[in-house]
């Protein structure tokens, strides 16, 4: 029983990070209809930037905040300099359908190469906010640490902030309208292109936070966040790729599910499980586990 509970809370802390990544991918997908595979690269880059900040200032809060701000700015730049002109150019060219995907891949490759070029390929450790040693319950140490608690707390805070922005603020209303009906939004006076860039910035920030939170456990290398990208995408698909709430639920489900698999079947089954779940959901419930009434085609 104790082991089961440990697994659950551990899975929740991992799952919250997947949720963040899922949120990032959903934000971009909703606003631009592009699955941004470069998200892993953007997150790695901002995490390295965070590492530099930590080397200079030795301040964790500063590290985290600057990494997030950098991630957001970089996300906005990707949209402004790459995606927006591309959408204008490609139109209905010979490979219009796959062009955005290929461009985000190109960006991923370029960023990872660039990161390796500057910081080298070896694994580096990244600071954690709090101790990563588990809490003591009675005499035993459980695999749930103060840092895990910090992760849960931070991601929940971010999600609440997102929920507030999207449901209560004018900006959120504009973002939702621009995502669902860009033309109607424009006719209502919403500057859709600008709103879209803000969406990319939010996504970049969320991805940066996800990177900074998972890296103390996984170590940092140019491609160390590839797996996070895959799990984030899986979580997003679990939630239907369209709804932010869905992505969060998908992330927690995936995190807890994978933690259970690791505890009871062994870690060699993590990936197979994730992959099977991904394919099964896509084939059986393409609208995600949390079914939505309207599904839009790409």
């Amino acid at each position, binding site marked *: 029983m104790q082991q089961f509970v440990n697994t659950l809370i551990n899975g929740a802390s991992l799952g919250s990070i997947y949720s963040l990544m899922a949120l990032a991918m959903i934000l971009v997908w909703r606003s631009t209809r592009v699955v941004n595979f470069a998200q892993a690269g953007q997150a790695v880059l901002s995490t390295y930037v965070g590492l530099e900040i930590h080397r200079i200032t030795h301040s964790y809060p500063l590290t985290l905040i600057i990494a997030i701000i950098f991630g957001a700015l970089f996300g906005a730049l990707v949209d402004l300099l790459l995606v927006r002109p591309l959408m204008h150019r490609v139109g209905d060219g010979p490979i219009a359908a796959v062009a955005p995907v290929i461009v985000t891949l190109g960006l991923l490759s370029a960023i990872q190469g660039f990161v390796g070029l500057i910081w080298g390929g070896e694994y580096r450790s990244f600071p954690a906010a709090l101790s990563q040693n588990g809490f003591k319950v009675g005499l035993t140490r459980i695999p749930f640490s103060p840092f895990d608690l910090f992760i849960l707390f931070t991601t929940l805070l971010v999600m609440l902030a997102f929920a507030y922005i999207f449901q209560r603020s004018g900006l959120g209303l504009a973002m939702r309208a621009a995502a*669902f*009906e860009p033309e109607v939004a424009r006719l209502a006076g*919403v500057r*859709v292109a600008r709103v879209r860039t803000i969406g990319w910035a939010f996504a970049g920030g969320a991805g940066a936070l996800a990177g900074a939170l998972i890296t103390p456990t996984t170590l940092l290398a140019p491609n160390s966040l590839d797996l996070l990208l895959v799990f984030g995408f899986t979580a997003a698909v679990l939630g239907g790729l369209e709804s932010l709430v869905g992505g969060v639920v998908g992330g927690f489900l995936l995190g807890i599910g994978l933690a259970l698999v690791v505890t009871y079947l062994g870690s060699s089954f993590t990936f197979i499980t994730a992959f099977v779940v991904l394919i099964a959901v896509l084939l059986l419930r393409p609208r995600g586990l949390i079914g939505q009434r309207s599904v839009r085609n790409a």
Partner: protein
Amino acid sequence: MLSIVGLTTDHGHVRALENVSFEVPAGSLTAVIGANGAGKTTLLRTLTGLTKPTSGSAHWHSHDLLSLSTEEGVRHGVAHVPEGRSVVSELTVAENLQLGALWRGKDPDVQIAREEVLSLFPRLRERLSQRADTLSGGERQMLAIARALIARPDLLLLDEPSLGLAPLVVEQIFQTLDRLRKQTGLTVVLVEQNAISALEIADNAVLLSLGKIVISGSASLIAQDTELRHAYLGY
């Protein structure tokens, strides 16, 4: 005054509008009528920047409409309600209304405009917290018009508001429109296939066929021209 001069728009190799010129005096209602594919929708889309024109010019007072982006046009008082009851289905009625006035920020007049619009379409008030996709076709059309009006435009471009609606609902919408412009001095360009209803409330009319103007002038004169009616309007 809205003045359009030599407007030409191409869709690929198809010429959708050819050398269209006409004027809409401020405060008047002009009906643009014609069969399917006459270029009526293209005309409105070109005026609000959703479609790029090939040549020509269009001015609303001193604003060069063709150089404004869609979202800037709204901020210069030009509202466009495209065909197909354009509301955001995923948002509530209240949110759709809020969306229309978002760019006006915290202007206290927004609340007043909202009240006015809701009293114009009282049925929307009952459904404020419902999602827009739960509304009937007529209610959606009302919401789309209300969303445009809440921005207090001085020029309203309406595309086929009657499409697919029951005659009674159409009647209601047209009456509201007529009342509205008489009260506020709003200038309206009404695109309609339903020529009879449109000509009834219009001051002037423009008859389009295959992208060209067949005739433009007083609505009542065109309505009386039996030959035109038979040839282009089918009644």
